[in-house]
């Protein structure tokens, strides 16, 4: 095993995802601390143009293969297994994303290498590696001492700042040798499904009234709509509200939903699980309302109130209307 740190470069429609730059930034710091090299692993088909965007690493491992054109956990795992056999590194970093999440566990079982998910902190203390993961919806942190063996780690997007790619180096490029046809790939990509059109584009709203489990039932959504209307904003929601079918997928904020950056994000009855936080953390002003004083949303919000959202919404709608009237007169 080398002391190298690998970063799985995630890309979509010809562009590197933010998580890749975040991992390169953190990976550089870790590689220095353990005296290893920082290596980007670029899997795909006809992705050579992305190599120039990976100038901040020491080396790039490339697998350019038709079976890797679109992501399938099986094919990507096979390519990584080949690379790992050759020169296993200290750490393999990937995003805890739609891609990384599938890859992490499949690869871990197939290679018998340990893996960690939901990681938000990585550090080296006295020469030892530690990770911290957010579990129980962000209500508990688990610190883990990383074993002295190649370890796969999936990092929650947004946990680390993006690296500056302007740092121009000339990383060595190595090919991962793969057979012309990958053996036993039983998963095949058919097509990309675009987000459903129509409805409100919540990414364009400067004020978002966001509702979570605390809204309790579909009937209470009307109150949130009234508040949003008074504020000139739109209603969006966390995952549980969407899964109940109370609002369409286009209103979902978080991991597999939208990423939003409004001037105001008013989180009503949302606990603030990491998957949700990921989609709204860059909002200019975050105001959170939850009955649980220990709800993780308060840790990152600018302002908070420990009241029942269902009591607050009508009161707030009335106050906003009063303020609007005053302004108008």
């Amino acid at each position, binding site marked *: 095993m080398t002391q190298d740190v690998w970063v799985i470069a995630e890309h979509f429609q010809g562009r590197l995802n933010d998580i890749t730059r975040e991992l390169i930034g953190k990976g550089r710091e870790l590689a220095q601390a353990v005296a290893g090299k920082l290596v980007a692993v670029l899997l795909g088909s006809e992705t050579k143009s992305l190599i120039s965007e990976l100038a901040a690493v020491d080396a790039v491992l490339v697998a350019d293969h038709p079976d890797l054109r679109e992501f399938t956990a099986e094919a990507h795992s096979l390519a990584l297994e080949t690379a790992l056999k050759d020169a296993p590194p200290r750490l393999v970093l990937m995003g805890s994303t739609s891609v990384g999440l599938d890859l992490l566990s499949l690869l871990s079982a197939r290679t018998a290498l340990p893996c960690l998910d939901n990681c938000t902190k990585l550090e080296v203390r006295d020469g030892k590696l530690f990770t911290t993961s957010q579990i129980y919806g962000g209500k508990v942190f688990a610190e883990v001492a990383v074993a002295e063996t190649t370890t796969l780690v999936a990092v929650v997007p947004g946990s680390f700042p993006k690296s500056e790619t302007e740092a121009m180096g000339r990383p060595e490029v190595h090919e991962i040798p793969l057979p012309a046809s990958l053996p036993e790939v039983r998963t095949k990509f058919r097509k990309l499904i675009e987000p*459903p059109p129509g409805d409100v584009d919540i990414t364009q709203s400067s004020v978002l009234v966001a509702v979570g489990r605390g809204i309790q039932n579909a009937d209470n959504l009307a109150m949130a709509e009234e508040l949003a209307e008074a504020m000139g904003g739109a209603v969006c929601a966390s995952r549980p509200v969407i899964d109940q079918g109370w609002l369409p997928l286009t209103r979902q904020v978080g991991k597999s939903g939208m990423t939003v950056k409004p001037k105001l994000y008013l989180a009503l009855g949302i606990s603030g699980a990491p998957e949700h936080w990921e989609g709204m953390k860059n909002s200019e002003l975050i105001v959170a309302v939850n009955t649980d004083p220990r709800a993780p949303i308060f840790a990152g919000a600018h302002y908070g109130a420990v009241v029942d959202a269902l009591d607050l919404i009508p009161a707030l709608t009335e106050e906003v209307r009063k303020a609007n009237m005053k302004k108008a007169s």
Partner: protein
Amino acid sequence: MNIAVLTKQVPDLVEGVEIDSTGKAVDPESIRYILSESDDHALEEALLLKERTQARVEVFSLETGEVRDSLCAALAKGADRVVIVATSADAPPSNHTAAKIFASVLQGLSFDLILTGVRAIDDLDGSLGGLLAGYLNLPYVGLVRKVEMADGTSMAVIQKEYPGGFAAELEVKLPAVLGVQAAEQPPRYVPVSRLRQVMKTASLEEKDAAPVEAEIVEVVRMFKPEEGAGAAILSGTPEEVARQMVDLFAERRLVR
């Protein structure tokens, strides 16, 4: 067609969780267990497939928490068979261990599809579905929101969620393991009377799992986020809080 659904119990976060005296695990005494949310969706998707294809649905659950209640609910909803997988461990096992246990239980049984929730709130070492697929050498797709059968029972056409509202349509040769994020419709409810009836008459099968050895991760400590860190708290009645909020919004010209 045979579908296996793997479920587990997780702490109900509404009740809160406390760290135990070792500082390295949650205190089981502080926990009320419920069925993991995405497992509930996996079961729902399996039941939808049963309605469309007359598939047989068997639910396997590790013996943690109030597993009997949720397995009776699964029977009441339409599962054909439920099995409690007994483990010798006191605490809920890691996902690597759970995946090895399920792999040993499922090995040799003939299932076309194995569905489980894509993630649970206590996942620390990857997702159960991906690990199981790795151990059984089956294909795996996670974050699934729709499953349809194609070509008889030899292939499934599935939708996998991508960020930003995108999704991928994939085809996968069966048998395969799928990690379900959300079923095509919200999980169905069971009338209490029906559940009571099932609880009176149901026979819950038990299977002993052989001991397994899996990669484990060493938790050094568990801790809760500091209370009061972060947000400036606005206090008072809902009306008082509302007035303070409107002042904040006005300062930032967020009210018209």
